[in-house]
């Protein structure tokens, strides 16, 4: 579905990532991990067509994302960022309704029944039906994150890209969000997601990409990419893994 060839990304003229080539298939759940500054967000934005490639290409179904018009691109790719927002009197429904923007022509000012259905479906998918008319500013971080995901779902794009969706969340809220993403994959979407916790990636993603030293350190099935040895290289920390009595394998930095 997504084909990346010789992708090069620069920040302020300096090379950040180079010689990246990989494919992501339809219906996959891919997680991207790496240290702060490794280029995870920049890569995700380039994949989503929100920033240009400084070399090489990103293609979606054999067509370069750079050639998509903004609305066309947004009907194919939804991008979820957790940046905060300040807007007076903004309700949850207002936020989610923004996801319908790429489905409207400039003269279409009002929502039709399909918009209403998409918005209701998105609220249901993130279990926030009763929050539709709440003011966004009154929500908790976990609820806000679910609203951002609902906005992306309302966009009805087959690709869902998320930048650290579990960033500020407590354990329970983080699990909730990851479970929602897994459900989206079951419903047929492709999810590409920047995560910080290798255990979250190991529990929910199909494949994991480790970024380090200006390129891809590993991009493989989760059990092959998220090994102590590779994570040690990615984070520069000694790692160890244990298997819990219930059979779940966990990886964490070992005490030095």
């Amino acid at each position: 579905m997504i084909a990346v060839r010789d992708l090069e990304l620069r920040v302020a003229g300096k090379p950040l990532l180079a010689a990246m080539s990989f494919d992501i298939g339809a219906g996959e759940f891919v997680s991207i991990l790496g240290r702060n500054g490794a280029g995870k967000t920049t890569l995700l934005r380039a994949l989503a067509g929100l920033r240009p490639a400084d070399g090489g290409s990103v293609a979606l179904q054999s067509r370069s994302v750079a050639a998509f018009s903004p609305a066309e691109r947004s009907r194919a790719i939804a991008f979820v960022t957790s940046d905060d927002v300040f807007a007076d009197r903004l309700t949850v429904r207002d936020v989610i309704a923004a996801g319908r923007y790429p489905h409207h022509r400039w003269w279409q000012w009002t929502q039709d029944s399909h918009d209403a259905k998409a918005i209701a479906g998105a609220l249901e998918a993130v279990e926030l039906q009763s929050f539709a008319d709440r003011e966004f500013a009154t929500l908790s971080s976990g609820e806000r994150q679910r609203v951002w995901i609902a906005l992306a779902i309302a966009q009805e794009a087959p690709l869902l890209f998320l930048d650290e969706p579990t960033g500020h969340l407590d354990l329970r809220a983080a699990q909730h969000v990851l479970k929602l993403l897994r459900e989206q994959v079951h419903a047929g979407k492709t999810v590409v997601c920047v995560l910080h916790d290798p255990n979250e990636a190991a529990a929910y993603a199909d494949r994991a990409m480790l970024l380090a030293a200006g390129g891809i350190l590993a991009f493989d099935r989760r059990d092959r990419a998220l090994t102590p040895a590779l994570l040690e290289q990615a984070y520069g920390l000694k790692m160890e893994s244990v298997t819990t009595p219930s059979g779940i394998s966990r990886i964490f930095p070992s005490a030095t």
Partner: protein
Amino acid sequence: MILRFAALAAGLLGVAAGALLVGGTVLWPAAIWNALLHPNSGEIATIVWQLRLPRIAIGAFVGASLAIAGALLQGLLRNPLVDPYLTGVSAGAAVAIVLSISAGVAAAAVPALGFAAGLATAITVAALARRGASLDATRLILAGVSLSSLFAAIIALVLTRVQGAGSAPAIVSWLAGTLSGRSWGDLFFAAPYAFLGVVLALLSAPALNALRLGDTRAAAVGVDVGRAQWTILASSSLLAASAVTLSGTIGFVGLIVPHIARRMVGSDARYVLAASALLGAALTIVADALSRTLFAPAEIPIGVLLAFIGVPAFLYLYLRDRRTAAA
């Protein structure tokens, strides 16, 4: 929502009708009705058609333009402290007008000069704030504020030079904002530009809704952020320049009315723009009616009056709201 807009429209019609009654001479509804039906029927008809109606129409025009421009810029920059003069429109127009009045330029040419200078300033500010295809909010605010203060200094300099000269009262009255002495002709000069501004504002409303969520999210849902920013800026500059040309600098309306509008209809840009226009028009008509009747025959500058009524009202609204939120 329809009820709220009906109430706003009815309110606007009500204050417009009320403003027809008051002035140097109080006219009774029957006399006004008669004058409205017979435009050439004598002195009262002249008062109604040549003095009061254009003044009310211009008040509505100026108030609506400033309120829409303010709502646009507050939405674009996601900053509730922004007013339509942020882009230097009024300061640029003021410098041109003050200079041309003090240089004795023919009065008829002054508004056009002010309009051109206001737009030119807005374009300069936008050019300074450009980053790639889009605009940087902080740079826009910094460029607008610094150019405005430079122009304010120039105006202060001119004022100290012309003190006591014949042109001083005209300059001061213009700077304080007034609707007196304007005619249908002035309105027809400014109207096409404001109309273009309104069309651009309406076209930007859906993008403005997405921009509430931040530039990245707006881009992610398919907004051409750069193009939306330029359209909104062009629209607000046209509206503010048209208003300033007619009335001088009237503060408060463009800053506060969008807040009141959001309080009434929520934050959807489509509703906020429409409600701001109606409220801005009504508020300006009321303020102008008061400004010419409170101390008649003397007139208080409408800008001064608006600040006197509006600032306490606004502070009350906001402080009360914060107390409710805290409780």
